[in-house]
């Protein structure tokens, strides 16, 4: 599985992040650039993303497939993968190319597919 998740590494830039986690916030993998930023990223990003997905559910929207946030400083792309999960695949960074990031995330999601098991 780690090979599959290695498919999406963050861009080589300060503050870039990529990772996969469960709908409850349990981290499956996380790559940060620089690596020492990982904990800080996880602590701020994951609760906010989970809050956002919960708000989307409370807004009675159908289960989301994709969330894109494009700010003046950072872009964050989130993909929801159903197989065995749901799992949330994320990629973010200052100069994130949304189209190629989406491709990477989709490839990773396809590769993981139903084989991805929620950790105990």
């Amino acid at each position: 599985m780690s090979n599959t998740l290695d498919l999406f590494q963050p861009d080589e830039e300060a503050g870039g992040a990529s990772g996969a986690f469960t709908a409850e916030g349990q981290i499956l993998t996380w790559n940060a650039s620089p690596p020492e930023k990982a904990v800080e990223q996880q602590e701020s990003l994951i609760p906010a993303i989970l809050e956002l997905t919960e708000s989307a559910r409370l807004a009675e929207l159908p289960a989301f497939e994709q969330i894109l946030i494009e700010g003046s400083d950072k872009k964050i792309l989130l993909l929801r993968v159903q197989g065995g999960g749901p799992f949330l695949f994320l990629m973010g960074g200052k100069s994130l190319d949304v189209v190629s990031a989406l491709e990477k995330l989709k490839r990773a999601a396809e590769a993981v597919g139903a084989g991805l098991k929620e950790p105990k």
Partner: protein
Amino acid sequence: MTSVRGGVPSQDRLIFIEARVLATLWDRNRMVCSLSDPSLFHSLFCWLRIYIPRYRQLLVLGDVPKETRHLKGVRVLDGGDLPSRMAALEQAFSDEETGAPPVQVVGFGLEAESFRMLHRRLDRGWIAFFPGLTKKTLEDEGLPVHEEIALEGGSLFLLDPPPADLSPEEELLLETASCSPAMKDFMIQMRQIQMNLAFQAIHTEIEADRPVTRPYLSETLRIKEKGLKKILHLGQREQRLNLESYIKDTPPQIIEFLKSLSRESDLALAALFDREELIGYARYRECFFPSRNILNFKRILDRMGNSACDPGRPWFMEIRAGDKTVHIYQGRFLYGFLLEGGAKNSSFRNRVRERILALERKPSGRRGAVGLTGSE
């Protein structure tokens, strides 16, 4: 009783006439009913009664028909002399301003002096029934007749002009045209009570010093502009309260912006906020997506702004969820859009971005419109 003189009227003609009667009674305008046969007073009153809001106090006086006396909700004002009965009526009218239910007075075959006192002292909220009264008699009494509606066996004289826009009444009557009398009564009463409750709610919001905008009322009460106009007008007629000036209008450039989006085939809803205040709202098709959802998403992104993952401002967010897509833009204002069913979301984003840039370049609204302060 609904039949008018001069043959059988068409359905459209009947709705036209009925809408004028409904509007007259709903607006508490003054009406005089003249019938050649006084034994028909009760049946005419029963026909008119479904148009009188049930939440009003129905006070009847004069030579009240026996059957009318026993109707539920009718309070007969008898006993005492004429001045004391009039004083009681005036007191009931003045209590309306302090929240007592509005009054509807119905006089049957009143003596000349009683009728004179009624129409001189009460500027609204009364109906008078007379046998064989002519338009000339009324006008000699100093009561110019605005309109006469001829019935089989008599006439209805409308003393005040009905509202210029009768569409709320006409729509209601069209909706109920194929209903049984009981269902029609229910639907008319339901709409009247709904509008009365809406007015009370608006009044309470204003008294609590909450910012009240037209888009907020339009969304919360699920009404269009003309519905809101009717609610405010009724409040003025029933409680003598003019709340218009307390309600912030949608700035004209935002109305233009929302109108310009009406050609977007996938767009279901648009909402604009200035800080937390809903300043523009339009539903382009039937959907349920409260605008507070957009504020909730914005608050989460605001919190992210205080952390290591701050996306920076301005920002754009897209949520793709099944056949629905939500777009939120945080610029000078907060813009939320709900799209349904389409696959052309990226082209929508480009088009709407152009319009947002154009809107944000425009100067503030004209005098009297809500100021566009922006959220910076």
